[in-house]
């Protein structure tokens, strides 16, 4: 079929062909390495964000890399039907949708005292009857400090504790805020914010914008927030010596009956920024009460139904879409990385972090 003497030919006879084959292989390998990030060390990747979260807070096997301390809750959403005009999502049709949620505080340390940060968060996974899901993670502040994943990463880096003092270097933090004027609205909020005594009395904002779509093909940019029915400021549990007072407060409140929030959806008008979570929309934008969130039960996150849920904000049902907010894909990607790390630890896979006992409280 071919000339067998070719194989015995002098080595340079096919040099051009060998070089071509080597070049094609090397080029493909190089392109793969670049796209995969191995040959693009400066690109911000989910891995780098999650590594930085670990550098700041420590590595706690089995726990989320951010908002590590929290509790599971279950309940349902009772739709008012009012959002149906804007979104086809089944969750907004009349009726109720079961959900598994989680209250938490920011930071990667699952043993941090509840008073260490003024922010609380609420994450929900709505399970629609048609099998689609809506997952959302909200914070108890109206604006996010930064608008891009790059700035978020720079903020984490600036806030990394100095090994000498165990605290962030104030000059680095100041330099970060000076270089990022978009953080002004958040800093103004943080100045007056105090750690609340209860998860139940907080508002929780979506921060990022999303897009509602209806069956007529109309696209409506929105933001939403959960507004509590509970308005008291105090808590009978008291937070004197208990660093975990939020969980205690929640358990006590739920023993007396369910807790309720209203899902208020704000409709953007043309020109309102959908790609910048540092900017609030004007207060006069129309708002619809899409329904009532009813939380009935709570349990520890180590054994509760929320433990194995990744509250990825881009798991969305038909009728809700992502906006052009650059934080959304970064959250989705980083949460996925965090989820793989903690499930790998759960599985005791080689190379994953090993769980440590809870540190003694001094």
């Amino acid at each position: 079929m071919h000339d067998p003497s070719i194989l015995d030919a002098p080595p340079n006879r096919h040099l051009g062909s060998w070089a071509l084959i080597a070049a094609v292989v090397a080029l493909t390998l190089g392109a793969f390495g670049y796209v995969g990030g191995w040959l693009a060390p400066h690109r911000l990747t989910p891995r780098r964000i999650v590594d930085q979260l670990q550098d700041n807070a420590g590595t706690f096997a089995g726990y989320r890399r951010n908002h590590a301390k929290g509790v599971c809750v279950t309940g349902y959403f009772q739709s008012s039907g009012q959002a149906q005009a804007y979104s086809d999502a089944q969750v907004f049709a009349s009726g109720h949708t079961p959900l598994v949620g989680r209250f938490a505080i920011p930071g990667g340390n699952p043993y941090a005292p509840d008073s260490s940060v003024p922010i609380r968060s609420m994450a929900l996974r709505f399970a629609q009857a048609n099998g689609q899901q809506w997952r959302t993670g909200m914070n108890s502040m109206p604006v996010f400090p930064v608008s891009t994943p790059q700035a978020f990463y720079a903020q984490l880096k600036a806030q990394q504790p100095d090994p000498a003092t165990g605290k962030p270097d104030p000059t680095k933090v100041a330099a970060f805020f000076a270089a990022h004027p978009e953080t002004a609205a958040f800093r103004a909020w943080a100045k007056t914010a105090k750690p609340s005594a209860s998860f139940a009395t907080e508002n929780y904002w979506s921060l990022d914008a999303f897009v509602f779509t209806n069956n007529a093909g109309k696209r409506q940019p929105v933001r939403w927030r959960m507004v509590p029915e509970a308005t008291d400021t105090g808590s009978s549990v008291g937070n004197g010596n208990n660093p975990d007072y939020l969980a205690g407060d929640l358990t006590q409140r739920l023993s007396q009956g369910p807790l309720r929030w209203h899902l208020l959806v704000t409709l953007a008008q043309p020109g309102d920024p959908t790609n910048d979570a540092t900017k609030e929309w004007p207060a006069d934008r129309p708002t619809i009460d899409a329904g009532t969130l009813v939380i009935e039960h709570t349990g520890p996150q180590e054994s509760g139904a929320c433990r194995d849920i990744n509250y990825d904000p881009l798991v969305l049902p038909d009728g809700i879409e992502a906006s052009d907010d650059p934080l959304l894909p970064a959250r989705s990607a980083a949460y996925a990385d965090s989820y793989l790390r903690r499930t790998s630890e759960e599985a005791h896979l080689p190379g994953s972090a090993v769980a440590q006992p809870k540190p003694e409280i001094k």
Partner: protein
Amino acid sequence: MKSDANTFTLPARVLHWLMAIMILAMLFIGVGMVASVSERHEWLLRIHKPLGIAILILAVLRLAVRLRHPPPALPVDLPAAQKLAAHASHWLLYILMLTMPLIGWAMLSAGGYPVMLSDSLRLPPIFPTSPVAFAVLRHLHSWFAMLLFLTFLAHMAAALYHGLIRRDGVLSSMLRGGKKVAVIEPAEMIEPAIEPDSMR
């Protein structure tokens, strides 16, 4: 030499080249999306899932075509080690193109995610929810992807080696129909030394 046994059938060739593009694109999409925090992450993921299921369907079809129409035999003078490498790598490619989509599907099922192929098209779960299974399957998905990429590289290099250096008709059996091969191969035999030298 002019018989059909020397070339792949037309369906086999169409499936081969179509899937070559799809699988190579899939590998780049996969490593690209997990290494990105930009909007690329989201739109690559939206392509990744339906493309994976399309590859699974085509792989099943292709296996059926292959079992019905066995591929042409390798050249008789091919060293035994190369024959073994050829057969092993082809079966490895089949195993990987069939299992990769299934692992991805099972992995999302185990992670408790809805397996959405579009805004509204959802596949049923094929694995019970389990964080341990998710972690194992997710890592397996990555390792098999690397193995698939390396096998693809070896496959591509071997195809070029057959086409440019051995010039034994193996590459053309996937490029051309039976009649053309019969015309072109003798020409290759007459002037085996001209082209490779001129390539330098």
